[in-house]
Every structure is written in C-alpha cells, then in structure tokens.
C-alpha cells in the first residue's frame, strides 16, 4: 500500500535520525567502568577514556584546597590519588571511609582528575548517590544490607 509506504518512510527518517543523535550522544558521554586493579592494566588510548572507578575513601586522606579536593581512593589492595576538580559541591556523604564512585580521566602524573564524585556512607543505605537526583524509588529502596 502506498500510504503505508509513506508512513514507513516517515517513521524510518525519524528512527534513523534519532539513532544518529543517539550515536552522537553516546560518543559524547560514554564512560567506562573500571576497578582500581583494572586501571593499572589499561594500555594506550584506553587510559585516556572517560571512566568511573569505585572504591573507598582512605581515612584521613581528604585535603581541601581552593578549587580542588585531593583524596586517596583505595580498594582491592590498590590505592589511587585523586583530585576532584568538578564544580558541584561534594556530597554530604563524602567522608573518611565512605564508598565513593569517581568519574573523570586519569591524569598523566598518575593522579586521577575527577569531575564527579558520588559517595555513600559505608554503613547506611543511601538515597541518591552523591546528591545527584533520583526519583524516590532510589531514595526508598537502595538498601546496603
């Protein structure tokens, strides 16, 4: 049927252009998730990708200075010096020994430059990681137990 074909073409254009936009958005925002151990074994360009790393904030390692916050993330027997250079204030839950998820790129000097930090207290369940928004189910259901 001709009408169906027309509709099909319209639909195809929409789907294709959305696919293209999705691909652009993907390239812009894709973030790898690595563990601290994996970070060491990354080679070449993989080391320069945007990534997220989870770990625990080493007790007593948080040093605040203007424009940046330095701390050490540890986990699986490894530790990683991190500089937080993002614009958002650090979440309330970001304290010694809290679980943290950092997002950014590894710097050349072995220091990780984080643009986002999410954190939660080790003992309590947490609503919305790192003060980022979450619809209520997150707030109500993320249980650490």
């Amino acid at each position, binding site marked *: *049927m001709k*009408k*169906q074909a*027309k*509709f099909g073409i*319209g*639909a195809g254009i*929409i*789907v294709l*252009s*959305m696919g293209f*936009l*999705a691909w*652009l*958005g*993907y390239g*812009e*925002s*894709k*973030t*790898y*998730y*690595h563990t601290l151990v994996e970070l060491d074994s990354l080679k070449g360009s993989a080391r320069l990708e945007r990534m*997220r790393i*989870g770990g625990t904030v080493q007790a007593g390692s948080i040093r*605040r*200075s*203007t424009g940046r916050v330095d701390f050490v993330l540890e986990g699986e027997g490894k530790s990683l010096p991190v500089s937080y250079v993002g*614009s*958002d*204030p*650090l979440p*309330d*839950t970001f304290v010694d020994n809290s*679980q943290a*998820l950092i997002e950014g790129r590894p710097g050349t000097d072995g220091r990780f430059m984080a643009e986002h930090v*999410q954190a*939660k*207290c080790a003992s*309590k*369940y*947490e*609503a*919305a*990681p790192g*003060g*980022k*928004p*979450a*619809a*209520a*189910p*997150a*707030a*109500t*259901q*993320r*249980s*650490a*137990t």
Partner: protein
Amino acid sequence: MDVFGSFALVLAFVCALYAFGGGIAAIITRHPLLIKSARQSGMATCGLIFVSTLSLVYLFVSDNYSVAYVVSHSNRDLSTFFKVAALWSGQEGSLLFWSFLLAIYVFSVLFVYRNKNGELMPYVGVILAGVQLFFLTISNFVASPFKALGVANAGGAFDFVARADGSGLNPVLQYPEMVIHPPNLYSGYTGFTIPFAFALAALLARYPGEKWIHLTRKWTMIAWCFQSMGILLGAHWAYAVLGWGGYWGWDPVENASLLPWLTGTAFLHSVMMQEKRGMMKVWNVWLVFLTFMLCILGTLLTRSGVVSSVHAFAQSNIGNWFVGFLCIVLGVCLGAYFKNRDYLKSENQLDSLVSRESGFLFNNLLFLVACIAVLSGSLFPVFSEWFTGSRISVGAPFFNKVNIPLGLMILFLTGVGPLLAWRKTSLDSLRRNFQLPSIIALLAGIVAFGFGWREAYALICLILCAFVACTIVQEFYRGAKVVRVRTGADWLTACVDLTLRNTRRYGGYIVHFGMVMIFIGLAGQAFNKEVEKEMPVGSTLKVGNYELLLQSMDQKQEKNYVAERMIVEVMKDHKPVMMLYPERRNFPTNQESGTMVAIYSTLREDLYVVYAGINPATSQPTMHAFINPLVKWVWWGGMVVVMGTIVALLPNRAAVVVLSKAEAPADARELGAMRPAQVALREGHD
C-alpha cells in the same frame, strides 16, 4: 503485632494461591460456585494485605524496636507523620506497600465488576491473583518486613533482642513530599496492572469487541494520573532537597519511572484508534503488556542493583526473582498472543498520511522511540558488559540528544493531532484549524528572539508551545461560541458547559495544555545560571539580577536534628526583596546530614540558594546559588495535567432538555455558519 502481621501475610499468600488455582479451575469447569469462591478468595487476599500493612504501620507508630525493619528505618524522635512514611522507606516495606496498593485496585475491580462481565472476570481474577502471588511470595519468603531482630546464639538457635531506639530514617527522606511521592508513583506502577489484566484476559478469553478497552479506560487514566504526579513530585523533591539545582538528571531510577509513563501515554492515545476504527489491536495489546512489564522492570532496576551496581552500590538477590517473574509474564503474553492472534485482526487500513490515524501512529512511534532510547541508555552498562566485557555507561548528553527532539515532535503532534480528521483531512480544514495558531506561534518566536532567546531548541519549544496553546484556546472558543448561541450564556459558563458535556475531549485538551506549560518550564533550562562562592558573613554574591547578602549564621535545635542556617538577604536592584534561609540539617541519630534548599520562586524564575557546607581549610561557609528560569511552570503544568485528567474521568453531562428545545431553530442556522465547531464536535474523541 509483628506475629499478627506476618500471619496475615501468610494467610494472604494462601488466599492468593486459592484465587489463582481455584480461578483456573473455575475457568475450566465454569462452575458458578467455584467462580464465586475464587473471587471471594481474591477479595480476602486484599483484606489480609490491608491488615498486614496496617500492623506494620502500627509497629512503626508504637516504636516497636524488636522488628529489624522498624529499627533500621525509624527512631523515637521521628514525628508520627514520618513514622508512617517510613513504611515505604526501605526494600521490605516498600514491597509490602506495593502489594497494599495493588490490593486496593484489585479489591475495587473485583467488587465493582462482581456481577458484571461474567465471561471476562474469572480470567481477570486469575491474572490479578497471579501478580499478587508473586509479590506475596517475595514479602513472605524473601524480604519479610516482619523479621524480628535477633542474633544466633552459641547453640545455633535464635535469640530475640530488642533495641531501645531505632537508627533513624534517612534524612533526605524526611521531607513532606517524600510522604506523598512514593504512594503516587507506586499507585501508578501498580495501577497499570489492571489494564494489563483486562487486556490479557480479553485475549485469553477471546472476549468480543472493544469492551475491555472501555472497561479499562478509567483505570488506565487513574494509573496514568498517579504515575504523572509521582514523577513530578519526585522531580520536585529532587529539586527542593538534593540541592544540585535541577530536577531531572536521567538517573536510572528516574528513567525507570518514566518508561511505563511513556508507553502508558502511547497506550492511552492508541486505544482511541481501536475504539473508533478497529485498528492497531495487536499494537494496543502489546503496548499494555509492555507497560506492565516496564513497571516490573522499573521495580527490578531500583531494587536489584542491576544498574546501580555500576555505581558499586546496593546489591540484592531479589533481582533474580523479578527477572524470573518478568520471564513468566513475557512467556504468558507471547503464548496468549500466538494462540489467539487471529482475534486481533485489524478492521481498517490507514487511509491518508494527513489524518487522525496517522497522527496517532506517529505519536505512538515517537513515544516508543523515546522509551527505547531511555531504556537502552539505562541498561547500557548491562548490555555493554554482555557484548564487550566492559561496563560502559552513558550520561545526560545521550538522553538529551535523543529526547529533546522527540519531545518537541510530540509537542507538535499535541497541537496538530486532535484537529486532524479521521480518515483524511482536507486542505481547507488544515488552513481553517492551523492558520491562526501558526501565525501567532511565529510572532511569539520573533518576540522571544528579540528578547534574546538564542538557544535553538528553547526557541523551537516556545514556538511550538504557543502553537499548541493557540489550537487549544481556538477549540474552546469555537465550542463555547456554539454553546453561547444556543444558551446565551457567558463565555466562562459556556466553556464549563462545553467541557462537562464532553469531558473526555475537553479534559484531554486541558491535559495537553498542562503539558504545554511543562514544556515551557523545560525550555527555561537552557538559560540556567549558577554561582558558587565561599562567603564570610557580611559578604555578597551576585547572581542574575539578584544580590545575596549573608547577614549571619545561626543554629536551631529541632526534635530530630540540628539545623545550621544561613540568613541571607536577597536584593534586587539594591532594594531588599526578601530573606532566605538555606539550611544544613545534622541528624545525630545516624550521623548524617542533609540540605534544605531555600527557593524564591516566581513565574519568571527561581532563585535557588544552597548552603553548600563549610570549607574546613578556611572555616568559611560556601554558598551555591542558581537562577533557574520558568521552573514554576513545570509544577503548575503538572497540576493542570492532573486537573485535566480528573475532568476527563468525569462522566459526560447529558444535554439539558431546555437546551435541546432552543436548539432546533438556532442550530440549523448558526451551525451552518460555524462548520468548524460542528466538525470538531462530531470528530471528538467521544
């Protein structure tokens, strides 16, 4: 009371089992007594769930700290209001609460249709009991909210222990919206079970005609309304509590609540195709199946840690149960579809590309593409791990890139769709309906451009909003004009009369108008500004047209927390406007803290001030201030959407006899001159 509650829960499980098994037997044997007993068992299930839920609430209110769930989600100093809300603040309780809300729906359905639709109801009862059975299994055997606090002693036996006080409710949840938001969202999630059950039942029973659509329309709209409110309340809560300056961040959990809303909205529109033209039957059935499965998936995503494990957060084995349940649901749906798909044969074909049908088709396509985009973005870490071995997540740019143009296209259809004729729309009618709105929209665009709107998407959004608003006003104007000719009433009365006579059509317009307002608010995001500064007392911060002077700091001891406040004077053009008090609350019970944002909200913009904490290095407080234009439109638009939905749920008022008397002479003459209105009325949704 905990024993009582858990017994009620076990009994509910047994009753649901009978409603399910007995119901299947009833369908096979068609024995009237069996049918009746299965139905009554279904109602008893609901009653027992009510009892069980109430006993958990009682445990909270009476400070019973021998129950593990109460201990970890409440404490003595918590106000009663929040003690009740603590019911749904954790996994076990929220699952029970889910069953509770579902039970309200199930009970209403079983009760309302107890003597009607005899062919269909046994199937509906079985499906509903099946869903309840799943949640009761979880609540009874996997995540029981009544588990007593205890420790294993040396002999391996269990020693009960009670605590003097609980460890408190998470501070971010101690906010009034947190009390109304989850019930709304869950009412939405659970509510979609009803249309799902009817659709599946109609398919299984090969129930003739489009009757299931008529039966479920109200239920679907109620669920949809709750879902919309739930999403917006959640957004507002995030905005007012989390203090990051926005209300939507494409977090997997937010996305989970949006997914069934997208397919549910598509479903509400596409059923009209089936009602009017007997088309898209397969599509409709699958849309409602999909909506229900997305509700379950949403619950799975928020509980299992499947997605949030990317954040290395919560892990729970409950996810496997949900995956299993999803597989069963999918299997049943596929089985029913392949067995009875000839029942879903379409009666008509698409006649023209410029027609109401095609408008609905595109509407559905756009909603579905949006749904797929959001779903794939949320699940990307899972899929990428399956296929490439490394977890890759995508962020806001991905979602925005796709969903902003999709949203704008949907907005365009909101204006165009309702005014297209079924089958085929003539050029003349296109001009009549869209000439004026197009001109006004373009003018609005030019004015906005003159005022410095340079963001392409925001500008397009504004133009489309003006366009859609005009089409809606035009519709009301035309309809009211006809009513005025007949009755001589004033404009307002005429509009009300018009709306009440065709609530579905005009309620729908009101909902669309609310969506326009929401889009205006969303467009405002393009112009957000923010400033963060370390502020000694007495210093000022400039943001937009405002100057914020930090006058002093103080501390306030409340029952459950200590509040540290910034006392901020807001000045505009060097004149004081008002005081704002952004807070940080420290909760001694669980050593957590939370922010309380201070917002000065006008229709034009929100001034949003956060006390971001004290820099330990300098001991100076830090202030984070945002200017968020037009945000209020989102919340007000949401209220209009809810109002419109309520209007659309009202039964149509029949034409008054007096009116129909006057109709005869006036009608013949006047309607001729006003064909558009007449056409519009005839082509209404109803």
